């Protein structure tokens, strides 16, 4: 049982997921967007192997790029897969910051200085 709207019951083979698309259409994921699986939302039995591998890779918090490297898949493929899994509620994302506030830059700087 997937989705309250019941629209995602059918299996979604990978070639359909990525077919013809090189960019995710709905949510903007970047290489450094953080992903984490939603444990209370298991994948349907008909989910594809790549979806399953990605959700299981996201058992903890990590970025799109890390998931891609560990799964040995191109970032572009993982971005499309993850985008769909976010839409279907199986993955959550945390903010990737494109326009950092001064406060965030200060936090980054402080962190770097601590490591130095």
């Amino acid at each position, binding site marked *: 049982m997937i989705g309250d709207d019941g629209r995602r019951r059918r299996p979604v083979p*990978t*070639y359909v997921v*990525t*077919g013809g698309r*090189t960019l995710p259409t709905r949510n903007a994921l*970047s*290489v*450094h*967007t*953080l992903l*984490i699986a939603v444990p209370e939302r298991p994948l349907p039995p008909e989910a594809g192997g*790549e979806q399953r591998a990605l959700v299981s890779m996201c*058992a*903890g*918090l*990590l*970025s799109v*790029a*890390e998931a*891609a*490297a*560990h799964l*040995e*898949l*191109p*970032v*572009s*493929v993982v971005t499309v897969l993850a985008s769909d899994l976010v839409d279907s509620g199986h993955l959550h994302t*945390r*903010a*990737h*910051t*494109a326009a*950092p*506030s*001064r406060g*965030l*830059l*200060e*936090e*980054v*700087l*402080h*962190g*770097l*200085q*601590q*490591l*130095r």
Partner: protein
Amino acid sequence: MDSNSSGERYLPDTVQESVKILVVGGFGVGKSTLIGSVSEIAPLRTEEALTQAGADVDDLRGVDDKSTTTVALDFGRLTLSEHVVLYLFGAPGQRRFWDQWVSLATGAIGVVLLVDPRRITDAFDVLDQLEEKVDAPLLVAANQFDDAPVYSGSEIRQSLTLPDDVPVIGCDARNRSSCLTVLASLIQHAHSAHSPKALR
């Protein structure tokens, strides 16, 4: 003592924000070395297709098909606080990779252009691209190879005809502390370039 457990795959659950810095430069200039010097995880590499047109996506394992041109993307990670993680992405400067790293630079909090003092003018093309297509704050770091001539920041600035507001520093990509100084200088630059009117 190494406080970084390189075997740790996942970030602490407290992390809420991720930022990225792009490190760009020619082959052999030390991008991967720099990333490896500061990353808390063993640097990772993923292949990215340069042109998806005509690529056979039916079998995702088949993307290493010889007909698909790929670029290796090296990256590393630094957890900076309970709240923020920084990713470093290395991208080759060559012309055929431009689209790749221009898109990587999108949303970056800064860009490090790493140059080899022995081949400094190699950076001209990359600089042109950066100036034309990338908004992120830029810093130029000269990787001080052992046998390289030592140029001052102003000499490098002059050879590359860099604008005054682009910081130039020397570094040793093998040295963690030196690389952290490069990153901190970039963020300081980004911070000072962050004009109040840009704040909302």
